[in-house]
């Protein structure tokens, strides 16, 4: 494990080096010490108690003669990193990896058992927007209350009030009790307060998706202004591509430990490589088991079978790279339908964004079992998770006989050439012209 650490580096100098070294990381995935750190997280660990019984009453405790029994769960395990002032830092990992707990330790709502966190500057957390709003009080009263919870003085709020109200778009409703607000208005006001308290450091936990598109745009502008003005941001997310775009540095957490740290691109690539090798391993195991049933297939009433296959091997496929082809195949009972059928496949990204909808253009009926295939020689999509729908229509496309949503799901894996992001993977040639 420790072969990767430099042998002469017996006394590491920074927390992040020590933290990374103790986990045997490759030197390239090692985040160096910050020159001017805004946040220093130094070897923090946090255990949670998982109580064996739900009943935690005094009676139960007296009967047992002691407090409720619990098991300990190591949520954060010896995590160290430094956040350079003026940069955007990402905490990445799957659900339950400890990234939100780490963030809460930085906000001080949760105290780590061991280790220290040093924060230099005023923090504002976009964790729970509108936490502490009192439903009976007006929006205006709640702004003052919420701002003072976030550490702002009345005079500062006075100066900022108009800006906050305007940002939230609540000019007409600010003197109304917030219990009459819609959930969108509530969150918008909470966001407006949190981002306008003049923080030096902003902590964000997956709340970038608030409000409508217009408000989203305003938020993103605000983030950009904040970054340009030299603000430090710490973001927690499992949205990889978002993190790649907005973060300068990132740490990857797994089971409470840092498994990678460095520039966000490196960290995310490292993770994707890992996921990819795991998937290949799992696919091998499945083929080895001889399990014939494909998870990427479905059956309906008229549709006998819809499936997604690899273009070359004709095996069920769950993951592929952009250069590999695939086949979408549907078999339906044309006699049961009673007329010719047009076939349509739709591909959607996991956030619901439609990638494309493909129509056979002709209709067919061939006895009880008709099979129609769509062959795609390449899969020109950026890495991510996608789902496929199938629908069969009459020739005019006015009537839909049957539809199966998400009969197949597949993952597009990153190919070797990774210098790209977005939605579509064009085949490209680069040269100096």
């Amino acid at each position, binding site marked *: 494990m420790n072969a990767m650490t430099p042998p002469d580096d017996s006394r590491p100098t920074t927390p992040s080096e020590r933290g990374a070294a103790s986990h045997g990381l490759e030197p390239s995935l090692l985040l160096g010490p910050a020159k001017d750190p805004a946040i220093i997280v130094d070897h923090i660990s946090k255990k949670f108690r998982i109580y064996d019984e739900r009943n935690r009453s005094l009676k139960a405790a007296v009967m047992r003669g002691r407090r409720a029994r619990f098991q300990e769960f190591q949520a954060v395990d010896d995590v160290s990193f430094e956040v350079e002032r003026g940069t955007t830092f990402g905490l990445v990992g799957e659900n339950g990896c400890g990234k939100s707990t780490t963030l809460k330790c930085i906000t001080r709502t949760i105290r*780590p058992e061991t280790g220290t966190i040093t924060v230099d500057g005023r923090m504002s957390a976009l964790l729970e927007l509108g936490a502490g709003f009192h439903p009976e009080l007006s929006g205006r009263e709640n702004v003052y209350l919420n701002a003072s*919870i976030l*550490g702002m003085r009345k005079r500062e709020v006075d100066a900022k009030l108009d800006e906050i109200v305007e940002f939230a778009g609540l000019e007409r409703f600010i003197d109304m009790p917030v219990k009459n607000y819609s959930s969108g208005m509530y969150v918008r006001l909470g966001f407006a307060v949190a981002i306008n308290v003049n923080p030096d450091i902003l902590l964000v936990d997956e709340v970038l998706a608030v409000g409508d598109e217009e408000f989203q745009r305003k938020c993103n502008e605000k983030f950009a202004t904040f970054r340009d003005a030299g603000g430090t941001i710490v973001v927690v997310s499992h949205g990889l591509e978002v993190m790649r775009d907005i973060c300068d540095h990132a740490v990857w957490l797994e089971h409470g430990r840092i498994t990678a740290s460095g520039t966000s691109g490196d960290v995310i690539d490292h993770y994707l490589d890992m996921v990819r090798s795991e998937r290949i391993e799992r696919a091998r195991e499945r083929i080895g088991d001889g399990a014939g049933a494909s998870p990427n297939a479905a059956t309906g009433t008229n549709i006998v079978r819809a499936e997604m296959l690899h273009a070359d091997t004709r095996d069920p496929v769950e993951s592929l790279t952009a250069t590999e082809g695939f086949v979408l195949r549907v078999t339906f009972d044309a006699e049961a339908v009673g007329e010719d059928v047009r076939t349509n496949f739709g591909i959607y990204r996991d956030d619901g964004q439609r990638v494309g909808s493909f129509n056979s253009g002709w209709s067919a009926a061939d006895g009880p079992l008709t099979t129609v295939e769509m062959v795609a020689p390449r899969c020109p999509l950026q890495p991510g998770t996608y789902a496929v729908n199938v629908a069969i229509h009459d020739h005019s496309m006015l009537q839909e006989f049957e539809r199966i949503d998400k009969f197949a799901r597949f993952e597009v894996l990153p190919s070797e050439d990774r210098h790209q992001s977005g939605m579509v993977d064009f085949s490209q040639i680069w040269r100096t012209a």
Partner: protein
Amino acid sequence: MTATARRRKRPDYPLELLWNLTLRELRGKYKRSILGWGWSLLNPLVQLAVYSAVFGILFKATPPPGDPSGIHAYSFWLVSGLLAWNFHLNGVMGAIGSLAGNGNLIRKVYFPRSILPFATSLSWLVSFAIEIAALILILAVFQTINLAVLPLVVVAAVLLMLFSLGLGLLVSAVNVYFRDIEYLTQIALQVWFFGTPIVYNEKLLTNPKTGLHYHLLGIDVLTIEKLNPMYHFTGLFRTLLYHQTWPTFGEIGVLVAFTATSLLVGSIVFRRIEPRMAEEL
């Protein structure tokens, strides 16, 4: 290594937040009720009427005559003790509610948690001040009032608030772990209320035949009362508002000692539990 979260500039206790949370309590208290703050007075008035009818008229309870005020009316004797008790009750129960009811805030934002019970206590102090002001007004119109006691009424109110806050910190913190502390406290306060001579004259603690004090588990009940802080607090408010004279220094010393003990124990326990509140709530 110690589990601390250091900051280069350590903020002071956020007094402004304390003030804002107190305002939130006060503003939220009687919103959406027609009488609004009238409830703050109606509640003790009705309580006073009921106790006066039951104990003053049916049971013919006789209060000691006010010395030197000369007042001799059960209802005035009762109310000067009852208001103090209600303030205490509200302070303790309010502290429990302030943590249990603000779980969302505690889980998400950092601030010294003791602000929540503190703000609740302050908001009840305001209600108490209104009630006392009304009582003084009524005394001035229908009976008599010695204005020289007023500064000490203020001191006594703050002292009682701090005493209740200390107890409130203790039970509210333990209630985070054991939710039935809330119900237990309710029952305990009920027993405590009737165990304190508030609706009855403490002379009733003496057996009229033998002229000796009753005993509880072999202990003189008056000795028990001397150890009961609320016996002293209700007594203080009666001295000030019913008898309308100054208490002895000894009596004030006893109250300061009770308050200091309560605050000390309350804050030690609270501080121990505070770091885990966000997880346990």
